[in-house]
């Protein structure tokens, strides 16, 4: 009785969800509005979707964004896993405090600062070494990897903290060397967390406006940049259509991923031996 959902909390939850999804619902609704004006409902129509499909600028930008996001997420996955592993397992080494700060700072740093600082770095490097030659997809990827690493590291560190180390010890005991243990035991079992981290870094990259604006070049316009410039001019139904597609893709992906990961993960939870009644030895 004490610990059940009270009416007050239920109402607050409802209010919260209406608040979160109201704007999204209106976006979707008006993407099917035959009229250009948001104010008037002129009947159901999908012609904005057709126009969107023919929008060359958006299509090119989308491809650029996806390519950047895939590369950045993959890079962030590698670096973030190494960083998360190091933070969780290596308790004492020189420069650990600095390393910890470097890894987690991007999480809270305002993007305008990160973007500006990276651009200034690229300019300085170009002056001194000739590389990178101007801003391009590469510079955006580097920027997004830096940001993504922080997120992946946090996810990996949290997963490793909950990881049953006796499994690794058992593998060592049975003759597997440490590197083998990592790849054969640890990695497969934290795979869902790695996937979640990759998706997180992917989404961050795909969605980023500020950092991309600072670090992009003439040929590397990203989707958020295109959306931003068109949105500054006012409401555009094509953007509504894009938003709806976006939402649909994300929802479907999350549902599939959830089904794929949720099942095996839940079964493995039960595989841990029941907590013994014994005291610690």
């Amino acid at each position, binding site marked *: 009785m004490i610990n059940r959902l009270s009416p007050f909390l239920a109402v607050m939850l409802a209010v919260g969800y209406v608040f979160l999804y109201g704007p999204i619902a209106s976006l979707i609704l008006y993407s099917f509005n035959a009229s250009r004006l948001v104010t008037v409902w002129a009947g159901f129509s999908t012609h904005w979707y057709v126009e969107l499909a023919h929008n060359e600028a958006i299509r090119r930008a989308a491809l650029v964004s996806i390519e950047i996001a895939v590369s950045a997420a993959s890079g962030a996955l590698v670096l973030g896993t190494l960083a998360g592993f190091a933070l969780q397992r290596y308790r004492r080494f020189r420069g650990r405090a600095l390393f910890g700060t470097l890894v987690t700072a991007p999480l809270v740093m305002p993007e305008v600062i990160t973007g500006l600082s990276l651009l200034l770095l690229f300019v300085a490097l170009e002056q001194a070494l000739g590389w990178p030659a101007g801003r391009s997809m590469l510079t955006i990827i580097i920027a997004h990897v830096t940001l993504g690493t922080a997120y992946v590291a946090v996810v990996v560190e949290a997963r490793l903290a909950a990881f*049953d180390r006796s499994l690794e010890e058992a593998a060592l005991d*049975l*003759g597997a060397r440490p590197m083998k243990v990592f790849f054969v035991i640890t990695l497969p079992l934290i795979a869902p967390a790695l996937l979640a981290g990759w998706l997180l870094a992917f989404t961050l990259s795909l969605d980023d406006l500020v950092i991309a604006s600072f670090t992009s070049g003439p040929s590397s316009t990203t989707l958020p940049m295109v959306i931003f410039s068109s949105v500054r001019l006012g409401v555009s139904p094509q953007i509504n259509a894009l938003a709806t597609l976006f939402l649909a893709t994300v929802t479907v992906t999350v549902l599939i991923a959830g089904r794929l990961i949720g099942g095996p993960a839940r079964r493995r939870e039960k*595989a841990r*031996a029941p907590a*013994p009644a014994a005291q*610690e030895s």
Partner: protein
Amino acid sequence: MSPRAAASAIQPYVRLEHVVKRYAPGGPAAVDDVSLDIARGEFFALLGPSGCGKTTLLRLVAGFERPDEGRILLDGADMAGVPPYTRPVNMMFQSYALFPHMTVAQNVAFGLRQDGLRRREIAPRVAAMLDLVKLGRLAGRKPHQLSGGERQRVALARALVKEPKLVLLDEPLAALDRKLREETRFELVRIQRRIGITFLLVTHDQEEAMSMASRIAVMSQGKIVQLGTPPEIYETPANRFVADFIGTVNFFTGHVAGTDGPLLHVFCPDAGAVFTVEHEPLAAGADVAIALRPEKIALEAPPAEAGRNRLVGRIAAIAYRGEASSYEIELATGRTLRATLPNTRRRAPPFAVGQSVGLTFEPGACVVFRP
């Protein structure tokens, strides 16, 4: 111990020499100067309460920790600097640590694969081991599909299949319920005798240690306080700690009142009586402590007339445990004593709370300690 093991008892198979392991550099020791020898094929137990250092010692032998001082030798070879994956030692973990993403067969085969054996060579060995632990038909299941007892057997099979020189068992029965525990105890001993591998068991459960091991080392605060066979540990505890830790015991302190050949008369003010015990002669007035196990006491009602080793008291409480009953008896001095009697009849216990009873015991039933 099999005759073969007894013969090679002269040549210790596992030897720990003055092993020390500290919690932190320069600080107190978790394992404090421990030396012991284990014979080949022996079923040896480390027994002690939480925090006594037995698990640390186990991990030192397994190779997960390095000793700060001392040596660990296995079949004559010094294990210093040898990592766990090259030691001829395998461990059965308390939590079983079965790999959740592998089947039972794959779990058991894991160690053999690390040795580089071919699939052709691995399969029959895995099958044989699974038969030994009676899990043959579950080879294709994953750990989460097994019961607690089944998982335990997989863990055991996995630790045995490589035929290591030494198998470590970390509280193997802790997670099992009572019935299963008793059955598994017999199983483990049977398996160990059959394959002849040396077992080192770590536990805080004295019943577990005494019913399975051929020799026990009792540990407290990082040191071994007594080493011996289960009967030796139980009936001739080296000190008060061991006597108290293993089973229940009644303690009395007193001083020597006189000698009588092989017997000693000790006056215990606590009990307000003289205890006659078997012990070599001691000077009159010497301080001694006496330990008397509850099952060594006989009760009679009404109390008989005074005699050797006869006390009188009133039953304060009875704990009925089915196969036996424990009686808490209050003596005239106010001191309480515990006596345990088997319930040999199906009728109600012969004594009742509040009844006046006489207690009696043999001189040889007492253990005498010099303080």
